[in-house]
């Protein structure tokens, strides 16, 4: 096997030195009846060219270069090519969690830079080294709020990504089992598309550990964070803000009133890759740092006085605290966090704003031309949005989806799957990479509704 650095002669020699007569001696401890006497029933060993060909044809089953207006928590932005050339350096790609600081300063300093950038963008004091993704990050943020407040109740806006909410439910299960329905959802205002503040006010109690909202929310609407914070804080509950589109922070006011921010950083140079790997991250106010889940890198000096970085506050973590740990997370998304760090370094202070503006402009144009079609209108126009919007069409989306596919375009996502009340409503996203001509084609096709409709 071409990955194995041994010849049969070397294997034989090593067995001799061990004093084993054959390799089977080393597996003798496995009870006879459980030893596999046959080949595994998996495809035969392939050559590299065959492997590449196999994946090429799998990839080709989807005609690449479709234009897509899908967003909904996963956003296609241009990825500067230096990200890939840097993260593929073996020194980053093939090293482990930086337990041995003397020979992992590269990874450690990069994570420290990542933590700083996330804190700067979110308006929080500190950020961790990453979580699995935005959905598990949100669930961990909620558990963190429960630890901080010693309370159990959790209020989640229905405008939060439906799959994020499902994950939070899964994580809350056992607490539900014990203390009953700990997690409740708060509806949204039908014309602003924002969380219903009155309903929220009514729902928050002194048993509420936290209120969790997403902004921009699942409909692309920017929530009124200051107002929500007031409501939560009045009752001593924490405010957790989940951010699924990190690019929005280039132009949208950061949720400085929040106590914890849980963000999905996929937009920062990470490929869509059919859903992962992405990069969650939790940021918070300084005072909560010892309740944070996940790894943290801190600055220190070595015995000669050189500045250096180390994994720190690990008494929070499973390998020290075991069942008392703040989380069970061990492996995180380090390399993806590095991609995000490079992305943010490429765009920098000015670029992230300019990029966000382009997204805003593209989406505004798309909304305008799509809504101009017969029987089409925008939903939730009562509040500001970033680069996603909800479109209502009198025509059944299935019908125009078909017309768009003919043009190699994937249109907006149907919302009735999660919001039965939003029938014929679709969620559209336009990032900077969608060319105007495709937007116009989409508009033309949408407008080409057959008269009967």
């Amino acid at each position: 096997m071409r990955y194995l650095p041994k010849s049969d002669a070397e294997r034989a020699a090593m067995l001799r030195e061990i004093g084993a007569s054959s390799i089977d001696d080393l597996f003798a401890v496995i009870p006879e009846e459980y030893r596999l006497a046959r080949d595994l029933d998996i495809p035969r060993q392939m050559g590299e060219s065959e492997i590449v060909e196999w994946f090429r044809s799998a990839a080709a089953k989807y005609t690449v270069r479709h234009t897509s207006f899908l967003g909904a928590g996963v956003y296609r932005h241009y990825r500067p090519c230096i990200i890939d050339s840097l993260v593929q350096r073996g020194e980053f790609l093939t090293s482990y969690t930086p337990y041995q600081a003397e020979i992992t300063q590269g990874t450690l300093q990069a994570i420290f830079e990542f933590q700083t950038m996330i804190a700067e963008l979110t308006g929080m004091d500190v950020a961790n080294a990453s979580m699995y993704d935005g959905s598990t990050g949100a669930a961990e943020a909620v558990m963190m709020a429960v630890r901080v407040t010693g309370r159990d109740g959790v209020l989640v806006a229905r405008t939060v990504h439906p799959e994020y909410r499902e994950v939070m439910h899964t994580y809350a299960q056992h607490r539900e089992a014990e203390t009953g329905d700990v997690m409740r959802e708060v509806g949204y205002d039908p014309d602003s598309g924002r969380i219903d503040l009155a309903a929220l006010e009514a729902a928050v109690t002194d048993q509420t550990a936290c209120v969790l909202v997403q902004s921009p929310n699942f409909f692309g609407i920017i929530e009124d964070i200051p107002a929500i914070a007031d409501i939560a804080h009045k009752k001593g509950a924490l405010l957790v803000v989940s951010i699924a589109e990190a690019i929005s922070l280039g132009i949208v006011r950061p949720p400085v009133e929040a106590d914890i921010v849980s963000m999905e950083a996929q937009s920062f140079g990470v490929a869509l890759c059919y859903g992962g790997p992405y990069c969650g991250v939790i940021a918070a106010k300084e005072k909560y740092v010892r309740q944070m889940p996940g790894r943290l890198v801190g600055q220190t000096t070595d015995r000669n006085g050189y500045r250096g970085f180390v994994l720190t506050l690990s008494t929070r973590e499973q390998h020290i605290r075991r069942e008392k740990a703040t989380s069970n997370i061990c492996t995180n998304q380090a390399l993806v966090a590095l991609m995000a760090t490079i992305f943010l370094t490429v765009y920098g202070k000015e670029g992230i704003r300019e990029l966000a503006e382009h997204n805003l402009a593209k989406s505004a144009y798309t909304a305008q031309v799509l809504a101009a079609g017969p029987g089409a209108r925008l939903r939730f126009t009562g509040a500001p949005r970033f680069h996603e919007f909800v479109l209502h069409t009198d025509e059944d989306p299935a019908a125009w989806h078909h017309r768009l596919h003919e043009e190699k375009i994937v249109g907006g996502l149907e919302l009735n799957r999660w919001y039965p009340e939003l029938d014929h409503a679709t969620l559209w996203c336009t990032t900077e990479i969608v060319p105007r001509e495709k937007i116009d084609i989409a508009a033309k096709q949408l407008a080409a509704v057959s008269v009967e409709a």
Partner: protein
Amino acid sequence: MSNVLTPEASGTAPAGDTRTLGKVRPHQTQNEALVFEKSSPGKKAYRLAQLDVPAVDPGALLGDAVRREPGELPELSEIEIIRHFTRLSTWNYAIDLGMYPLGSCTMKYNPRVNELVARIEGLAEAHPYRPDFLAQGQLDVVDLLQKCLIEITGMDAITMQPAAGAHGEFTGILLTRAWHQSQGDPRRTVIIPDSAHGTNPATAAICGYSVENLKSNAEGGIDLEALARQVNDQTAALMLTNPSTIGVFESQIHKIAEILHANGALLYMDGANMNALCGKTRPGDFGVDVMHLNLHKTFSTPHGGGGPGCGPVACKAFLEPFLPIPVLVKDENGDKHWNYDRPQSVGRVRAFFGNFGMFVRALAYILANGPDGLRQTTEDAVLNANYIRKKLEDVYDLPYNTPSMHEVVFSDRRQLKNGVRTGDIAKRLIDYGFHPYTVSFPLIVHGALMIEPTESESREELDLFVAAMRQIAREVEENPQLVLDAPHSTRVSRLDETTAARKPILRYRKPA
């Protein structure tokens, strides 16, 4: 010139060589400040495509929601960024540079073809909400990988959703809980051996179970009597790592399963050590009910400095109804779809379908190996560990002399006499050009040196490692201070972790 042929002399140390220690020699590395310290206003590394739609006024569109204070991100040019991260990278050790025998972490070779196929545009640019009919290629990848992993583990069903091992444990324990509940018999405790990895108890706890510790027996394995005594009608499951964290196969594994099953409890296997079993034996055959795999260990996906990983969970048929949604199904025309209609499901553990990019890499690895390659891989992994054991057992204390599988665990007992601990030996090993083994784990071994070479090490590299470890043992006798002050050959040495934790500096702040 003849000396160049002995492995010790790779790079050809001359007679009386003073600068080569083991297999490394000092050279210069570039210093590099924090990226923020290199920033200056107006430098740019980006240029956007020309905007082809009317520009907008953010203030007008967003009102109060507009950002007034930009975040303090750095401003650099492209070459400075290339240099920044290239210089940083040169401070890292990596598999690509040499042996990385971190026990329990399975630091094996990460094939480059995996990276290539994971970047094929049709795979890398696929949106998870793309309609299934446009995602058949992606679903083929998921489907074939699932089939392979089910065959390798000998289980009946699998979910690819968990993002890492600990996440897999979480998912697996949720399945256990859901099954017990479905039996109208919710249970309260999970039994975990004292040799277990920290994620096991942490997982049981976040799943709401109380953790019961099981003391290992004299061989570092499961004490059957103790287990039998401990299991009761409140026991939901035993979380077992097999081979154990001391690298020993639980030869009584089937009896363990019997005891649990007889009490209505389940056997959860932490599959972190599957690299010792792949193609030689199957957990599904020896009584395991549910287990997780670490694609970033056994199946060669890169660790990337700490992640991303992928922790699929395989289970027996009776647990299948509880798997997270969605699950992959085939319709009558052979088209593949995601099925969300699973009333008994524990729900979702992650948005979308899991770390698909890691699926691609792991599948590429399996295809590159085939049945024969996987078996040979396992055999070489076990051979390497036993070779190291043989070559070091006379100088380092072997707490358990039960046969080793893919890793061997020594203790620092002998070196402690001279005040040298496993952590010090680890630091000194750095001077010899190796990444240290896993330090002080498992906890059942006081001062553990946990060494997992994996199959990826040549005999030459193993011999260099053995020579270094033996030399260090000698140094401990003759000059312990040398070891206590190690490493001596690195850019930084012995960083102050106490101060780091007492006064945490977790971010850069621009000096006023």
